[in-house]
């Protein structure tokens, strides 16, 4: 009797384990290069997808060094989402190594989130392979315009619906819910920054073009002219002159960017340095896509108010 009960219990246990396993397997495995895309993919995919991101938050995605585990993730994934525009060039090599035909450029599982975005700062030609043509690549920080989330989520929705048609309705509903939540938030953010409009500020790296366009900010100069190369003394002198002439009191930087130059310029001009998160998770307060903007907008408006006093 006892043995039978134990047997039954074992059966139930193993069945439920099997079910849980099957459920996990049913979840569509998605690999995103950055946490921002992960956050948006989760917003559309909900619990039908399992999204991992490769670049840890608060790390410079442009010089990320892939880990061995990334390869394993790509081998098992059904979909890969990248920023594109030469921002995550290292992914190309990784995809070649992973040898997963479902994720190759042109396959259903390959999603370049920059698709259909209205690009800013298009200069010169792209370095990456772009299907034979060398399109001028633009500024890659497009997720920092919350209105672009509409386009990115649409791209994600299309790809998810193609891979998993059975759940297409769910994905669509989730995207609409996300957009419903985004619209009032966007108005709220714009209102919060209305006092900052046109106020000149400096940025460390040219990461804020889309953000500035959406919220009408005047980024009058950047400290880093070429990515990863220290500014020359003549450029710093020019920035100091600009700061004096335009009465710039604010320098925006990301957590991983050098403290030295912003602190140096701030000390010489009596300005303040504001640390903003350019991607989800870069600061503990910016836990998801909404929190990212909540935090940045609060930090920026607080800093502007403080600089007035």
């Amino acid at each position, binding site marked *: 009797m006892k043995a039978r009960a134990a047997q039954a219990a074992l059966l139930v246990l193993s069945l439920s384990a099997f079910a849980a396993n099957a459920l996990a397997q049913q979840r569509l495995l998605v690999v995103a290069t950055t946490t921002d895309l992960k956050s948006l993919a989760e917003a559309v995919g909900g619990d039908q997808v399992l999204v991992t991101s490769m670049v*840890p938050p608060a790390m410079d995605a442009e010089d990320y060094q892939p880990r061995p585990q990334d390869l394993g993730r790509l081998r098992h994934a059904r979909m890969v989402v990248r920023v594109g525009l030469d921002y995550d060039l290292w992914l190309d090599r990784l995809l070649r190594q992973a040898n997963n035909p479902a994720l190759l450029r042109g396959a259903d599982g390959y999603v370049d989130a920059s698709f259909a975005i209205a690009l800013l700062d298009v200069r010169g030609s792209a370095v990456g392979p772009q299907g034979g043509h060398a399109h001028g690549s633009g500024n890659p920080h497009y997720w920092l315009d919350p209105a672009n989330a509409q386009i990115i989520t649409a791209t994600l929705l299309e790809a998810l619906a193609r891979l998993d048609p059975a759940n297409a309705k769910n994905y669509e509903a989730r995207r609409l819910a996300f957009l419903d939540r985004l619209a009032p938030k966007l108005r709220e953010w714009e209102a919060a920054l209305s006092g900052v409009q046109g106020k000149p500020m400096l940025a460390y790296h040219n990461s804020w*073009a889309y953000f500035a366009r959406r919220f009408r900010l005047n980024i009058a100069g950047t400290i880093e002219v070429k990515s990863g190369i220290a500014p020359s003394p003549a450029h710093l002198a020019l920035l100091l002159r600009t700061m004096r002439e335009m009465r710039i009191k604010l320098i925006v930087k990301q957590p991983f960017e050098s403290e030295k130059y912003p602190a140096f310029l701030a000390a010489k001009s009596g300005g303040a340095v504001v640390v903003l998160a350019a991607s989800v998770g870069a600061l503990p307060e910016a836990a998801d896509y909404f929190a990212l903007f909540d935090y940045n907008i609060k930090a920026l408006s607080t800093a502007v108010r403080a600089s007035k006093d």
Partner: protein
Amino acid sequence: MADALAMLWLPFLAAVCLVAIHTWFGIQVLARNIVFVDLALAQIAALGATVAFMLGHAAQGGASFAYSFAFTLAAALLLAFTRQWAGRVPQEALIGVIYVMAAATAFLLVDQAPQGAEHIKQILTGNILTVGGDDLILIAPLYAMVGIVHALLRNQLTSPQSGWWWDFFFYASFGLVVTSSVALAGVLLVFSFLIIPAAIGLLYAERLSRQLAIGWAAGSLASLAGLVLSYCLDLPTGATMVCVFGAALAAAGIVWPLRGGSAEKLRSAGAIVRCAFAVMLALSGLWLMTAPRADQPLVDVAEYAVPRLRSAYMREVELETWRDADDHAERYRREAERLNQREAQSRWHGKPLAEGEVRRISSFLKSYAEMRNGEEFVKREVRARARERTRWVLGSGLILLGLAVAPWWRNGRKASEVLRDKHGELS
């Protein structure tokens, strides 16, 4: 000018302070044959600061410094003890191992806290341009103190018979200096400060005081030249200064065999230079003949410096095409820049551009970039064809020029003999 002065005087003072202490240490380091010890100690100090950071201490606080210094002391102890087995395994090997271990460990630690990546980078990539008055007030007395103590104890420090504790004292004080100087000026520049003035001093003098004086003078001059050059040419300061220091050492090395300045020496030096030129010209000529479409470094540089040289081998039609393409490329670039500026302005000023307008601008920009690429292609192609057509004439011209420059006969002696003598003298 006022801008330049305001920007450069503090960095210059800092450079002079750094050169002053590092030349002294550099002479010691060269004598002990442990050239890369500063890299190892700096990396160990960075590791200490990283550990402090991981334990939750502020990035630039007392705790961070204490950890750095404790780690440096441990490394100093290790280095002092291992001098004994320097006979069997060179000490430089251990220094290298310490360096890579410290760097790798720091990377592994930082991997756990991405926010730390910037922190560790900052410790090792200081920039002399952002030195402030408060930094100078800290380092100047510190270096002066270390310098005075070392000057008083120099007999014990330099004698090879001294016990290990003198070694320990040397490494510990050196660690103290390097920890602060690397944070200020970065690894590359500190290495140059350490080795190059000392090497120039050793090259030109026997007595320690003269070596120091020459090193200080050379280091200060090179720092000044590097800072001014980086301002005028709009280049990153640290890298420019390192290159100027390197050039100073090269100049000192070239002039060294000529000191005393006898006519014979000067003449043979001239022969070497002319020989080098001749070989360069002849090789370029040959290269132009074999691969006229490949990169032609010498011809390209000459053309870049004197654009009129193009008319020497291009026909009038080709020149016309080339100029036309150049004009158009420049026009497209300006046009694209104008559009970019208009868009950037509209982000905050006046009426915001509609989404469609932004798309239109970005597709215009892409087209301009493509068109510019096309014009650049035309320029390259026209030039390549002209070079292909004239390769035999141009190539043999270059070779002949090389032959003309070569020092064939000099006072009845063959240049090769002069060279051989020179070689014997040097080795």
